[in-house]
Structure formats: C-alpha cells, structure tokens
C-alpha cells in the first residue's frame, strides 16, 4: 500500500482544487480502501467529501427529488420521501444486506464503485483479456459484445436508470453538467479506460430523479441471503393509464458492463396490463440479445425471472 495524503475539504470548490493528478475522492471508503489495500488503486491523495455539507441530504425540489451523493445507503433506504416514491431504490439498497456497508457506503460511492471481477481485483486489469473468456466467468456479463466482460457492480445504477435519473457533475473549471444515469455507465473497449463517464477530477454533486412518481420496483436474484452480490437484478418503472401500461422502463443489473435497458420489452408492454403472462413475456424479450460466456448462460434465466418479478412487484401482483 502506497502512502497517501489525506485532505478534508468543506466545500465542493475546495475539493475540486484538491483533486489534482493522482488524487481520488473518498466517501464511505468501503470500496476505495479495499482497492488500495489490494494495490489495484494507488492514489497519492484522498479527498474526503463527507465533510461537505451541500453533498448530503434528500429533498424534493420542484419537479425533482434530489439525493446528495454522500447520503448513505441506510439513509436512503429509511428516508420517508424515498420510501414513499421509489420502492425500486429502497429494494435495491436493502439488497446490500450488510448493515455495516449500508451505514458506511454512500449513494455516490455505489454509483462510482469499481467492478468486482475477480481477475480485475487481483491485478489483471479491468478487461483481464483472455482470462475471463477462458476462465471462471460464472459471475460475468451476459450482455455486451465488446472487450468488457465484468458486470457493473452498482445496484442503485439500474434502479436510478429505470427511474430516469440524472447526475449533476462538477468540474474543476467551475462548470457543472447533467449526465443522465443511462449515459453515465460505459463499457470500456481498451485497458485503462474507465467504466463511468466521470473524470478523475470531477465530483458527482447531485442525483436528481424526476417526478411524477411511477409504480416502480427492483427484484434481485441472489445466491446467499446474507451479504452477497446480486446474480441478476431488474428495476422497472411503470407509468400507468388505468390498469394499462402507458410507459415502461426496464433496466437489468449485474448482467453487463453497464446496466442493460430492455427496450423491446418496454415497447411490448405499452397498452398491456401486468399479468404473470405479460411479465414473463417481457422477461423473455429482455434477455433475447444476451451472449453468454462459457459458464454463465444460467444468468439469462435469472435476468428473465428478475424482470418478470420486478414487473409483478411493481404492479402489486404476487411473484411466485
């Protein structure tokens, strides 16, 4: 582990000025510290953003819900505003079944955390070329045709994407930009490229979710009930017109290097009521484009079920 400096700014501006080459943002540290200990990251400076008041808090501003990036997963899951409007987010954060991690980990950190691919985490690079395809890939991606086979680790990402959320990002030049969550996650094509649209000297300052609230839900398929990574998740958001779907948004998690949108299934559902049959059909359509690796075809079935059950949960129909 390489020694590093530690900085404790109190404003975003100050934080940005501290994010010089080799510096990294520290939030709850639940991911970053293990990356440092395992020598995957070797930052020269850590810039703690938890002392920046404006980066916390959950509120409703005009037509948006705003979540501050340093809000912990636990705060998120227990916040009445969020519980009322976004069960998809609550279910996604409760899927992280370690109270310790929910108490320390933050929303911003969850979105920016690095993938858990075991080749990446043991120093073989994010793409771990050749190793994944020929090796142990049961937890890897079934979507994406490029060089990236890791799965995006964030459970909140797919939920926020299904809810149409946008991230506000502050840059050192003083400007801010709005990046839809759907464009935040990227599949790198070469070693050294990042899996998120965020430069090392930028800070996610706001997570904005538009109203009106919809019927929404997340369903996670996990192996172990105690703390474990999802094998597949699906987050859905439905705008209803009476008992019929007026608009649907379906995003699958942990099946690709980014959250994966199921656009065909979304289209198919318009005008339909959510029943076991329509939900099952949507699930089947959602995984049609999957290209599994040697050991992970089973994840197609899991993603399919996740979509089906997320839809049923959102619509208030019994899942099994």
């Amino acid at each position, binding site marked *: 582990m390489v020694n590093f400096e530690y900085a404790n700014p109190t404003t975003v501006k100050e934080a940005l000025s501290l994010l010089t080459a080799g510096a990294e943002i520290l939030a709850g540290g639940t991911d970053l510290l293990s990356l440092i200990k395992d020598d995957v990251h070797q930052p020269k400076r850590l810039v703690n953003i938890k002392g920046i008041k404006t980066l916390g808090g959950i509120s409703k501003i005009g037509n948006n819900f705003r979540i501050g990036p340093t809000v912990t997963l636990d705060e998120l899951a227990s916040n009445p505003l969020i519980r009322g409007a976004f069960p998809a987010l609550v279910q996604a954060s409760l899927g992280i079944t370690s109270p310790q991690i929910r108490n320390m980990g933050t929303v911003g950190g969850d979105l920016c955390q690095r993938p858990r691919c*075991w080749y990446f985490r043991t120093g073989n690079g994010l793409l771990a070329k050749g190793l994944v395809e020929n*090796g142990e890939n049961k937890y890897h991606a079934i979507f994406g045709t490029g060089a990236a086979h890791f799965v995006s680790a964030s459970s909140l990402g797919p939920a926020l994407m299904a809810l149409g959320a946008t991230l506000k990002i502050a840059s050192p030049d003083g400007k801010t930009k709005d990046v839809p969550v759907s464009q935040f996650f990227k599949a790198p094509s070469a070693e050294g490229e990042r899996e998120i649209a965020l430069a090392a000297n930028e800070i996610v300052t706001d997570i904005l979710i538009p109203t009106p609230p919809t019927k929404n839900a997340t369903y996670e398929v996990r192996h172990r*009930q105690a703390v474990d990574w999802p094998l597949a998740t699906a987050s859905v958001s439905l705008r209803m017109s009476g008992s019929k779907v007026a608009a649907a948004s379906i995003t699958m998690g942990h099946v690709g290097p980014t959250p994966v949108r199921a656009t065909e299934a979304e289209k198919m559902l318009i005008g339909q009521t959510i029943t076991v049959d329509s939900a099952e059909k949507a699930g089947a359509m959602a995984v049609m484009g999957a290209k599994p690796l040697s050991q992970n075809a089973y994840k197609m079935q899991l993603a399919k079920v996740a979509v089906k059950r997320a839809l049923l949960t959102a619509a208030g129909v019994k899942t099994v």
Partner: protein
Amino acid sequence: MAEYKWPPMEQRKLMGKRIARLDGPMKSSGRAKYPSDMNQPGLLFAVLLTSPHAHAKVKSIDVAPAKAIKGVTAVRVISGPGTEIQWAGTEVAAVSAVTEEIARDAAKAIVVEYEVLTHLVKEENLAKVGPRAKAAGEQITGDPDKAFQDSEAKISGDYGIPVITHCCLEPHGSVVAWGNDKIDFWPSTQAVSTVGGDLAKLLELPATQVKVDCQYMGGGFGSKFPADRWGAEAARLSKESGGRPVKLFLDRATELTIAGVRPSHFAKIKVAGKKDGTMTGWQSESWASGGIGGGGMAPLPYVFTNIPNRRMNHTQVSLNAGPARAWRAPNHPQASFLTCSAISDFAAEIGMDPYDVFLKNLDLTLRADTYRKQLVKGAELIDWKKKFQLGSAKTGNIRRGLGIGIATWGGAGHASKCRLTIHPDGTVEVEIGSQDIGTATRTCITQVAAETLGLPMSAVKVKLGNNSYPPSGPSGGSTTIGGVSSSTRKAAVNALEKLLEKVAPGMGVPPDQLEANDSRIVAKGNPNKAMSWKQACQKMGPTAISEMGENEPRSAAREGLNTQGASGIQMAEVEVDMETGVVRIVEVVAVQDCGLVVNPRTAESQVAGALIMSVCSALMEERIMDQTTGRVLNADMEFYKLAGLPDVGKLTVHMDITKEHDSRGIIGLGEPCAIGGVAAIANAAANALGVRVPMVPLTPERVLAALANRRNA
C-alpha cells in the same frame, strides 16, 4: 485400587447438566485474548512473500531492496534458488518490520525470478488430468457383475463435492519471541502439548526450550496441529531481530490458499437392488484431490459397508494447489454425501420413500439398532411421514423436499494427563496441557472435577492452554472430551482419596466409607457425620494434595470412562425456487449419540455449529481455481461464500441421550456431527427438484442446469 467409573446417571449433579460455557462472557465481551491479540511490547510484524505461480522453479531471489527499507528488522529466504514450487501461495520469503505496512512494502520489494512450469489446478473432469491421475487399485467383494445383472432395479449417478478450505476466522499464525534461553510461542493451535516440540524440531532446538501458550483460538477444524513453516520463520525472524516478539498471521488470501483444504471427491456410482428397496450391489469409480500429494479417499460405500456385492475403484489426482489438511471428519462428509445421494436416487428410481429404504437396509450397517432409533426420532422431529412426497409428484414454482444423511465416527479419548491440586484453603485447581478450541473443553473439565469432588463449578479453577501443564493430546479426531474427562476424573478421584485418608481418623470412619458431596465430606449412609469441605482441607496440613490422572487409550475401553463409536443421522428440509435455482434451508435436524454427554448444552452448540458448516458446504462453499493463472480466484470472504444467519434456517439438535448410550462412557462429538448434513441437504434438494443436482454446492447455475438436463432428457 481407586474406583474411577462415572457416577450413575441419575446421581450426577453437574455432569449431564445444561451448563453455560464458562468463558462465554470473556469471549463475547472481547476480554478473551487470542494468540493474534498477543501484542507484546516491542512487537514486530512479519509478512510472507508468496509465489504467484502454481508450478515454478525459483531462479533467483534478491532481498536487498527489502533490507534497505527503513524499519525492516530481518528478511529471510524460505524458498531459495532451485526450489520447485508446487502451488501458488507457497512461502518464498518472510520479512519482519516495525509496522505491518513496512513489512508489506518490504515483502513486495523482494525481487524473485521464476522459471514458470506447466500446472494443473482442476480435477473435476478426470479425462483432462492426464498423467496426474494415479489409480489406487480395485477392491471387489462378492460378485458385483452378477448382482447388477440379476437386479430388479438399478441406478447410475454422477456426484461431486469440491475442495473447500477451513477458512478459520482467526487465520493461522503466531506471535513468537526468541529469548536467551527459551522461545515464547503463542500459536493459534489445536495442539498445545505437541506444537512446541514441533517448533523445536523445525528450529533444531531441544523441546524444553519452547514455551507454548494458547488460551483461546479462533477455529482450526483440523488444520492447526503443526507449528508450520510460517511459525518457524516467525521464530527465526525474531532471533534475527534481537529476540523481539514477531507476529506472523496469514492474511485472508494466504489463509484460503495454503492453510489447508478438504479434498474434493467425485464419483460415478451404481446401485443395484430389489424393488422392495433392498440394496444388493454397489459400484463406484471415484477420484479426488487434496493437492500435490493427491489425497482424499472416502470410505465407500459409507456406513452401509455390508452391501454384499461391491466393486470400488479410486483414483488420486495430483494438483498444483494448496495441500490438504484434516478437515472435521476427514473423508467422511464426502463419503456420506456420495453414498447417501446414491441410495436416495435408488429410492427415487423405485418410487420409494428414501426413509424406508434407509430403514430397510440398516442390517448392512454395523449399528442397525442405533440408526433405526435415530431415524425414527429424526423423522418425528422433522415430521417426515406427513411431509414426504416423491419428487416426481411435486408442482409449483416453490417446492420443498426432504433428505437424509448418515454418519459414523470413532471418537475414543486421546492420551491425556491431568494434575489436580487441592490446596489447604480448600481451593482446587486442575492443570492440563489441553486446549479449548471453542468446544467448551474448559467448561466440561470443570464439570468433571467439581462433580467428582462434590463441589460447585465455581470452586474449581481449570488451567489449560499451556505446555508447562501435564501433556494432553491434540484436539483432532474428536478425542479431546474422552481424553480430558477421563484424566480429570482420575486425578480428582486420586486427590480426593488422599484427602479422605487425612480426614478419616478424625471422623472415626474408614476413608472408603467417606464421600464428597455438596461441599462436604460425609460418611456414606450417615449424613449427620459430616465435615465441610473447607474444614476437611484444613486437616491436610500446609502441603497441598496434588495428584495425577491419566487416560491411556490402550486401557481406556476396559476402564469404561471413554470409548468409541458414535452414530448420527441428519435430515433436512429445503425449499427451492424452480425459476431461479436458489435453494434455501427450512430446517436441519440432527440426532446424534456420543455416549455419555458431559454437557448437553455445549454439545448441542457443537452440533449446531457442524450443521452450519454443512449448510455452507452444501449450498455455497467451494474453492474456485483458475486454470490459466493457477491461482485461487475466491481467496476472500466475498466469493468464498459462507452462510450468514439468514441462510442457516432452523436447526434442531437432538442429543441421543439414553441409559444405554450413557453406559458406554464418553465419546467424541466434534466430527461425527459434521458428516451427514451435506448429504441430507443435497438429498432434500433432489427430492424437491425431482432431479439430482450432481454436484454441491447447490448454486443456482448447477440447479438450473440439472433442471434443464431433465427437460432435455
């Protein structure tokens, strides 16, 4: 000759009672000091540099860059040039420094050049292991070919259980200080009385120089007997650092990579029998690996050893992977899983309830009567007859199933010596070079001594965990409870006899007409003729009474204090999600005998722990090797999955305490209860799914694959 035999069951006041573990508060409040807590003044930290290659020759090693780092006190080469490394994680060098961070940096600074050789790290597919396979020869009994030809029904199945590790929560390691005339050694060990000698041997020193102390330890499960190379290197680093204490504990990744595994076991098994469930033939072609030395040969067929016609072939596979160590009942969980799975599949084939098939064939076992009673009890506890339904009859997305696993074990007491001292002020101390590896050994020894002396638990101080005490065997093979209880009993009887001799004249009663009871010395049959324990002890004069007791395995059975031969059955109910392949535990029931049960409460806790380990192994635990890099991919506690509380389900433990078992004396428990669970859970899943998942752990991908295979069949 003193009379050592256990007091009759109904007269015991402490033994057989549900007494809470004496050191529970120490442990749960964090006051218990484990070897990894032995942070001595001036402590140095040591770190190993390990091989990244699974098979390689060390060409050169340059430790100068490590030595040059400020704060480094010593650097040692463990695998010098020319050494052939046989598994990734092999210790190559060790460094000690004033902080752990510096030691880590220094280990990283060492430059090693390897000649990388070809490796094999996977054995699941026997066809791919080539010359690494070594056949162990064929065993034939009866006429298996004819038995299969003539059979009314037969099955053939593939079964597999992978390598798992011990994953001790306190990793392997020690704190050690090389002083002028002695070495202080604080290892996390299961073998307090032998590990010092082992270290001395590695260091080529007289055994008298090593002082061992281990009051608490965080799990060993069979992997913590030796001093180990890392123990010896820690001692040498201490010596080279001027005798300062050195702490060397494996980090989690190294712990899971080199500190021991339970061998895998795979088999193609055929069972022949009659339509009424009677088994007549068995054939197995099995293979296993426990690392470079091969290893692992499950006793097949398990428990049902007298299936009349049998053919067994076994192959050992040598892998470039961390070596095997004893793992709670070596080879038995695998054997039970393989055998009970095949029997259950045979039952499914002929459309019978496996419970009836197990019962039907008990005459093929060595303890039919005991198993029969235990199966009946287990069935009652899990409500088998009401719940059982053939797998083929089940419907719905969420299905439940029931399964059985069966176990046998020895468990005779090991060699043990104990010294019991009665002081003139009436206090009592027991000294014994044993260890409490989390099994409540301290508590049980206290019960035995207090019971024998007619005193309350609080009057007896038990001292263990130190090799200056009389030697007692390592805690392996479920031998501790029998050994230490017997030696303690004898020491207590011997000491009491001395005390009675002293007080008899004053009381006007012959010593053999006196007994110790309720903190008093009482004339047998005349409770009015009595003296308090304290008064009695004052009669002994200024010198304490100190007597030895010994358990000698060769004569123990004759004396009847401890014996061997434990039986147990386990039953599981699971729930499977047919769409996701996720298997959850509803309940696991254990019915277990271990002769005379010293403490039913801690015994139940021991069994519950074993059930949790079985849940881990049946549902999630597996070492995952990468053939390209030759390394363990899940050498962490994130993807090396162990059950958490929500995964465990309901655990029901029934200790089979009967007069009949009690009269056999004490039998070990640690291992027998860790055998049948995997089979029970795997069989319950097969029953729920209506199809066998050939390999455990029952991960969603394996369950879904088994369901898909059935659909395609």
